[in-house]
């Protein structure tokens, strides 16, 4: 039982993200994504680029089931997320960390509590949760700020909190939508180094950005979307 489960996971694990002819249409007659097929291997780091409105955010949303595809199949960790039951969505999201340009932190909660939310929803015992949160905050260099509130932190620090929240569950996949869009160049590198670090530890990472400087600097695989269609896919 366990063995066969392993094998299935392993097959998906080689390419935890696969899209086959995926289209997404919010409004009849116009496509935010059109016939997109791609495969991303385990531990791979991928930039998703393209002009504004190209469909980058839409693609990420499809991956964590915030939106459903209009056509095509999306396999995440071997599961067809386009057809996922509503009740199965939380389990998927616990395996995927997500960060956004605007951080999406809870302003009334401390840094520690913001990170802890991700463990609370999984029912992690308090003692274990506290230890994990501390470790995670240390990793992003914010352990000394754990009792502060997000709004008293700099933008870069807030994004580090958001990253800590996304990674504290040790997710297999990290999705980042313009994670450095609000940050100056120095803080951008700080965040990107953390994201790249996660991928070297085996997490599959997709970073959506239209910052071409960033893309060139890191020299990673880059998938370009244009008007919802697949453009270049440079290794």
């Amino acid at each position, binding site marked *: 039982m366990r063995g066969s489960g392993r094998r299935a996971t392993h097959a998906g694990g080689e390419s935890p993200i696969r899209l086959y002819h995926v289209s997404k249409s919010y409004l009849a007659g116009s496509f935010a994504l059109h016939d997109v097929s791609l495969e991303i291997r385990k531990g791979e780091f991928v930039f998703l680029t393209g002009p504004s409105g190209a469909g980058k955010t839409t693609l990420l949303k499809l991956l964590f089931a915030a939106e459903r595809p209009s056509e095509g199949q999306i396999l995440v960790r071997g599961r067809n997320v386009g057809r996922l039951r509503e009740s199965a969505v*939380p*389990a998927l*999201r616990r395996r995927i960390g997500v960060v956004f340009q605007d951080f*999406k932190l809870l302003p009334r909660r401390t840094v520690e509590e913001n990170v802890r*939310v991700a463990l609370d*929803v*999984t*029912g992690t015992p*308090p003692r274990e949760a506290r230890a994990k949160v501390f470790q995670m905050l240390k990793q992003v260099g914010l352990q000394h700020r754990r009792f502060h509130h997000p709004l008293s932190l700099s933008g870069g620090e807030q994004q580090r909190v958001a990253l800590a929240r996304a990674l504290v*569950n040790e997710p297999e996949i990290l999705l980042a939508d313009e994670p450095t869009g609000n940050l100056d160049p120095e803080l951008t590198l700080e965040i990107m180094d953390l994201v790249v670090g996660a991928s070297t530890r085996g997490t599959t990472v997709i970073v959506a950005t239209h910052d071409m400087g960033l893309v060139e600097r890191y020299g990673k695989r880059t998938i370009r979307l244009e008007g919802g269609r697949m453009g270049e896919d440079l290794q």
Partner: protein
Amino acid sequence: MVAVLVRTALRGLQSSAVTSVAAAGTIAIALVLVGAFALIAGNMQGLLQRFGEELQVVAYLESDIDAAAAQQMVERVATVEGVQEVEWVSPERALERLRESLGGGGLLEGLEENPLPASLEITLAPSHRTPEGIAILVEAVDGLPGVDELAHGQDWVEGYSRVLVLVRSAAVGLGGVLALAALLIVANTIRLAVYAREDELAILSLVGASRTFVRVPFLLEGTLQGAVGGLVALGLLYAAFIMLVPEVQYGLELFLGSQQPRFFAVGEAAWLVAAGAGLGMCGSGAAMLGWRA
């Protein structure tokens, strides 16, 4: 997990203090109104019961009925539906009672002849101490040969029980309407709280919170708000009760006789608080129906 849910609920109450107070207040107002009606109806019902215990129908007999004939009538009346006890009171016994009640003065000394008629004092079984029960008795006894006149409190009982039915149905009807109104207002109030925390809910859902994890704190919050509303209502009613009762004591005595006005028993008070908690929980449940991640 439970601790986390409770903590989240408490935090929610704290962060939406204004809407929480509004929800609890709404429930309190509704329950004060319902509770006041329940108190009034309860006290009136108590009075009717007490009145019923003293209720007797007296049949005055014509003067030519002797003891033997009277005894026959006693037996006859005792078979009427609902009659518990029939007692024959002779003219002599009636005069004696009158003397006793006048305090043995010389007022009745000059009487040549006993002017008082004999009578039958009829007591109804508790289940028949109703307007209908009295009507049955009156009908059966009124036409009997030898009965001169019937004295009974039928009109009184009828009027009183009609008022009681009215008050009771008003309490139930008004209670229902108020509960529904409170439910809607509470649902809306809590929906505001949900909107106000939409960002928080979105983040919870983003990190993989289940529906239960998102909803239970709101249900707990609603229940707690409702219970607090119920307690406040209870407090207000009790304060009003002890402040108002002495003010209207004289009027109440006329109305209730020696019966003391009664507040809710512990069990009834608990029901009021439970009703508040139930209202709050249903209200937040209704508010959550509209929300999805």
